[in-house]
């Protein structure tokens, strides 16, 4: 019975999404802001702010030290400039590094205690915080079989996690899914062992900053030989103005386990650019498999390039164990600037990495995105399918590295990189780096660039579609291989997003 209710929730969500697509003309769907009293730390970043963030999260001493060390490193680093991105200099001291809804001062013990306005915000975003249903006393909801479309959600609002659903059911399976701030307190041995082990504190400018000031994020641990009974999902939302969001995600898939993880992002529409610098670390042990899917829809800025999110993200998976497997799927439609290269370290023998990406840029958006496949172990395999779509005056770059180390004997990579241009004022760029240091491995790279064809457009319109429907249909076809790699409910949302993102790109 509860299962049926869930399906209803799902249907409602889709309808709302579909409605929104229809009713909005070239506007950003998630552009409203929630009026909630916020508590801010003072603007800027220094060791005191770092300490304050740590203190607010009630962290143990070792964590505070870890952050301070990261901060000391960050101060010595320079912002990288190698990407094909052009944006005004970011004043890192003119940002808030910590903001949280006032009602969260005392952490809620259940969703009941969460500010209803927060929950309303997530509801508006189409996120079913379904634990409400369980808390509301739906009989037997806890014992529901783990099939169907159940998704456990961790929701992060500005800097703070506001609620994780289905925790008790996950616990039964031995799965830990909570906010990272909670994990630091409750599971310090796991956090200590794995945090920074894939993306070291010294990794890069933004990751180092994140290490110092991350305020929250999600933590996942899947015990050995466990198939996570449902999909896990984190929804990130930036609400407060001039506030950077620095979330940290740590996923550990122990031997022989499996998990599918979804990440969604939105932000309100604002004139000023906002900073987002996240770090995601994934550890995949022997015979384990992780699927990580992202639909990134941060505010892209308006049609004149004003405002939007600057998105600098470091995502990396370490396939430590033999026969381990990781699959990144991303749909990047938002952000004014995207700098993001979800990568795979293929350390274990016969480990596999896959990267499926759709990056859509319209108006003045810029994306420099791709992946790194680092083959260290023997018989490792990787596959890259990248679909870049550029419209308006946008610039879209695929940047990828495939590296076969001397010990990565008999390894294989296949890369397919397709770019689609809409109009004649946008750009598509492909920058593949290939390093092969043994003679038994094989690397294949295919790349195409095409334009949305006039004939195709006319054909669609003659059958009754308007220009925007036609473009959305053609682009969805172009990106199909990637959309198919997404979990069902994300695929639906992603298809609608393609339509929204490209509004105003033709005619």
């Amino acid at each position, binding site marked *: 019975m509860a299962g049926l209710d869930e399906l209803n929730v799902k249907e409602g969500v889709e309808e709302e999404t579909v409605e929104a697509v229809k009713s909005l003309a070239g506007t950003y769907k998630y552009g409203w802001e929630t009026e909630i009293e916020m508590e801010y730390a003072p603007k800027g970043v220094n060791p005191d702010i770092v300490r304050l963030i740590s203190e607010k999260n009630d962290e143990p001493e070792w964590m505070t030290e870890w952050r301070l060390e990261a901060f000391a490193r960050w101060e010595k680093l320079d912002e990288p400039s190698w990407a094909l991105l052009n944006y005004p200099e970011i004043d890192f001291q003119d940002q808030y590094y910590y903001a949280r809804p006032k009602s969260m001062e005392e952490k809620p013990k259940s969703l009941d205690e969460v500010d209803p306005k927060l929950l309303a915000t997530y509801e508006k975003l189409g996120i079913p915080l379904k634990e409400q249903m369980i808390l509301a006393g739906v009989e037997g909801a806890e014992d529901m079989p783990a099939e169907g479309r159940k998704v456990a959600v961790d929701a992060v609002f500005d800097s703070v996690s506001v609620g994780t659903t289905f925790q008790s059911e996950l616990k039964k399976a031995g799965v830990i899914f909570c906010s990272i701030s909670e994990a630091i307190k409750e599971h310090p041995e796991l956090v200590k062992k794995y945090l920074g082990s894939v993306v070291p504190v010294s990794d890069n400018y933004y990751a180092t900053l994140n290490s110092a000031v991350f305020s929250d994020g999600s933590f996942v641990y899947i015990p050995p030989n466990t198939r996570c009974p449902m999909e896990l999902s984190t929804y990130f939302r930036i609400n407060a103005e001039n506030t950077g969001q620095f979330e940290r995600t740590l996923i550990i898939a122990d031997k022989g386990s499996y998990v599918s993880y979804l990440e969604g992002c939105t932000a309100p529409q604002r004139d000023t650019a906002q900073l987002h610098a996240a770090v995601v670390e994934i550890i995949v042990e022997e015979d384990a498999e992780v699927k990580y899917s992202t639909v990134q829809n941060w505010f892209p800025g308006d049609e004149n390039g004003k405002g939007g999110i600057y998105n600098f993200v470091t995502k990396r998976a370490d396939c430590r164990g033999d026969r381990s497997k990781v699959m990144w799927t991303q749909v990047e439609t938002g952000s004014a600037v995207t700098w993001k290269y979800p990568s795979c370290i293929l350390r274990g023998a016969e480990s596999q990495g896959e990267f499926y990406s759709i990056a859509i840029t319209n108006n003045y958006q810029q994306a420099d995105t791709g992946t790194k496949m680092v083959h260290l172990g023997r018989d490792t395999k990787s596959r890259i399918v990248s679909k870049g779509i550029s419209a308006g005056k946008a610039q879209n770059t695929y940047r990828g590295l495939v590296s076969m180390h001397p010990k990565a004997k008999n390894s294989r990579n296949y890369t397919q990189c397709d770019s689609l241009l809409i109009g004649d004022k946008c750009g598509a760029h492909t920058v593949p780096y290939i390093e092969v240091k043994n003679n038994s491995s094989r690397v294949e790279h295919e790349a195409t660039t095409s334009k949305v064809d006039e004939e*195709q457009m006319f054909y*669609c*319109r*003659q*059958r009754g*579609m308007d220009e925007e429907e036609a473009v959305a*249909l053609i682009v969805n076809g172009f*990106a199909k291989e990637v959309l198919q790699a997404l979990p069902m409910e994300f695929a639906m949302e992603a298809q609608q997003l393609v339509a929204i993102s490209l509004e105003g790109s033709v005619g």
Partner: protein
Amino acid sequence: MLKINNLHVKLEEEDKQILKGVDLEVPAGKVHAIMGPNGSGKSTLSYVLSGRDGYEVTEGDATLDGEELLDMEPEERAAAGLFLAFQYPVEIPGVGNMTFLRTAVNAQRKARGEEEMSAADFLKFIRAKAKDLKIDADMLKRPVNVGFSGGEKKRNEILQMAMLEPKMCILDETDSGLDVDAMKLVSEGVNALRDEGRSFLVITHYQRLLDHIKPDVVHIMAAGRIVKSGGPELALEVEHNGYADILAEIDA
């Protein structure tokens, strides 16, 4: 139904006049055929009526049930009931044939202020229509026209026509590239759609298509104008004697 008055059309990019005063009227329920030598402007006429870019109307007009066609966007003409079966149907990689058709059907319904067709109704509808045209389930799932044979592409055009239920169907050399069996199948599909509320304009080089789709009126087009009109026997005359005699007769 369709009325074309003194239509003059030139290419947008160059100063080349293609249509030089076309007059044509296709009443409801009738099938008119247009024949003519290469370069006479037959395909241009179909493109201009359906609203393809690249042409400039310099004089004259065209109406569909009294509505001025040439002011409308291509999708508005489609929603008003105009359908063009393409001579070269276009491939759309990655888009399933069924998805394409459902999007088209619902786009037209929406434009006319009608309810969208539910997934279940649509499936029932398309399966019935596909069966008549010997289109199997596999072909419905494949990407639009990608890897289709010539015959499959043309059958697919007729399937779309059957699904969209237009008032005015223009068939642009639908017989080109078809073998005898495929032509028969396509013609049967077209004949099944003939009814008193629906008109056809069949553009073809050859009389043989008109053996299967029997026209009420045959027009001969040459140098951008309709130069002669008559009954089905006119098509036979062309078949036997070519266009030379007719053109000479007009010049004289």
